[in-house]
């Protein structure tokens, strides 16, 4: 059960933290009720709760963490607090239930671009991160430059399908080691748009396709480099940007022969609670439920 706030935030061209937290308070319980109903489940059949402890917007995390733990306390159920980022990697289990570490994971979303290793001991090690914008931010900002609606990722994805990805040679984002950097390519797009007096529909599609290609190429280049340095039997892609059709297609072509490639269905790449449920199961096996009440942690990493 996913309750999207995209429509709520669309008029502002991005997520408004205060709006998000207000909506959370009012919608969370009805969403829980609907999810139970859709699953044909009653509370009496629920054995435990999993909840995102972080990272994210503090106002939203506070609502989730406190509501979930209050319900758990009142119903005497155990609760497992998990990392939203790790959950994007664990989401691979929703696609392939035999998925086991070691796994090389790429988590790309509006807030994150992280390259991680889910190790055999269960820990997650971050081996690459963005130096500036996240990949999803790069898509959102690019979409705004191109005059496309929020959320920008799907808008560019759609428009790019009718464009020529080789029309404009955008610079490939470079950062040291396995890190990412997207501010350069965003600036290049801005200059490209500014130097043209008028942009035809075809030119806009070409720009979108070329811009998307630069981001996708940069992401996959880092995964290839990490895989070359220390090959993992399995590679998992996750996060909202992993819905991008060009990224999924190019990943299949470039990574498919390097490892067992797992890309969850688009709706399981976007933020969802099923991945939090899987994460709670994995964390439960590893360390058990949380023994005492815990706080939200907006800057939590992968564990």
């Amino acid at each position, binding site marked *: 059960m996913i309750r999207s706030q995209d429509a709520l935030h669309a008029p502002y061209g991005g997520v408004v933290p205060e709006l998000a937290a207000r909506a959370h*308070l009012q919608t969370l319980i009805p969403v829980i009720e609907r999810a139970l109903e859709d699953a044909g489940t009653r*509370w009496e059949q629920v054995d435990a709760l999993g909840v995102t402890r972080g990272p994210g917007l503090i106002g939203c995390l506070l609502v989730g963490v*406190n*509501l979930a*733990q209050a319900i758990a306390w009142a119903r005497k159920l155990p609760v497992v607090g998990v990392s939203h980022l790790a959950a994007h990697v664990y989401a691979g289990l929703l696609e392939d239930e035999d998925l086991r570490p070691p796994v090389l994971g790429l988590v790309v979303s509006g807030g994150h671009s992280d390259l991680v290793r889910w190790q055999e001991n269960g820990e997650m090690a971050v081996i690459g991160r963005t130096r500036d914008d996240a990949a999803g931010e790069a898509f959102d900002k690019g979409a705004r430059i191109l005059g496309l609606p929020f959320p920008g990722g799907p808008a560019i994805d759609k428009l790019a399908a009718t464009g020529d990805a080789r029309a404009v040679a955008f610079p490939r984002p470079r950062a040291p080691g396995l890190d990412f950097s997207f501010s350069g390519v965003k600036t290049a797009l801005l200059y490209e748009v500014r130097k043209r007096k008028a942009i035809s529909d075809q030119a806009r599609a070409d720009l979108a396709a070329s811009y998307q290609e630069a981001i996708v190429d940069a992401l996959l280049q880092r995964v290839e480099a990490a895989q070359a340095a220390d090959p993992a039997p399995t590679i998992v892609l996750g996060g909202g940007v992993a819905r991008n059709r060009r990224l999924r297609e190019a990943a299949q072509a470039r990574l498919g022969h390097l490892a067992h490639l797992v890309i969850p269905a688009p709706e399981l790449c976007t933020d969802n609670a099923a991945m939090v449920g899987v994460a709670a199961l994995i964390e439960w096996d590893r360390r058990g439920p949380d023994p005492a009440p815990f706080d939200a942690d907006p800057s939590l990493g992968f564990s």
Partner: protein
Amino acid sequence: MRLAIDTSGVDQALAVIDGRRVLAVDDWIRSRGDPPVLARLDALVRRAGGGPDDLDAVVAARGPGSFTGLRIGLSLAAGLAYARHVPLYLADSLPILARRATGDPAAVALRDAGRAQVFAWREGEPARRLPAAELAAWLPNSARVIAEPPGMLATWSPAQAHLEIPVAERRSLSAALTDFAIWTFESQKPLRYDEVQALYVQPAAAEERDRKTP
């Protein structure tokens, strides 16, 4: 047993009551590194001789007040009421604060709203948000004032500093909360779980702007 939660301000409190009888209370001052409120709540309910199954109703302060504190208090209250299928009530924070003064007439409650603004409440009116500089004109010279944080009236309106009730003469927040909770349980209507919302008191200018936006 019924539970009352006020985490909307600097002083925070929980109270467990049975009818009009107080079973257990907890007062603390908000600070970094506090244990989660749920840990306090768990300890308090046990101290009152009960457990989750004994909960009959929940009331939480809905503000105006701290963004973080309100989200914690309202989420806990909603979660508890929903999970136990018991009535959920919300109560305005400033009238609770005002009850830290005893006797008549009811005290005026002032709470720091940040950015040189003050949340202000007096009997018979909704809470408002004022620039501290406008407080002197709004505040009756006969008023008895509960200010939060204490001592702030001297900063907001120095000429009226003497109107503030000294800390030593104030009741605990939990005592004020208990009073207000009993009144709420006995006379107010419970909310639906999807009606849970913090009370936002915007400056007059922002309200004006909101009315113009469709």
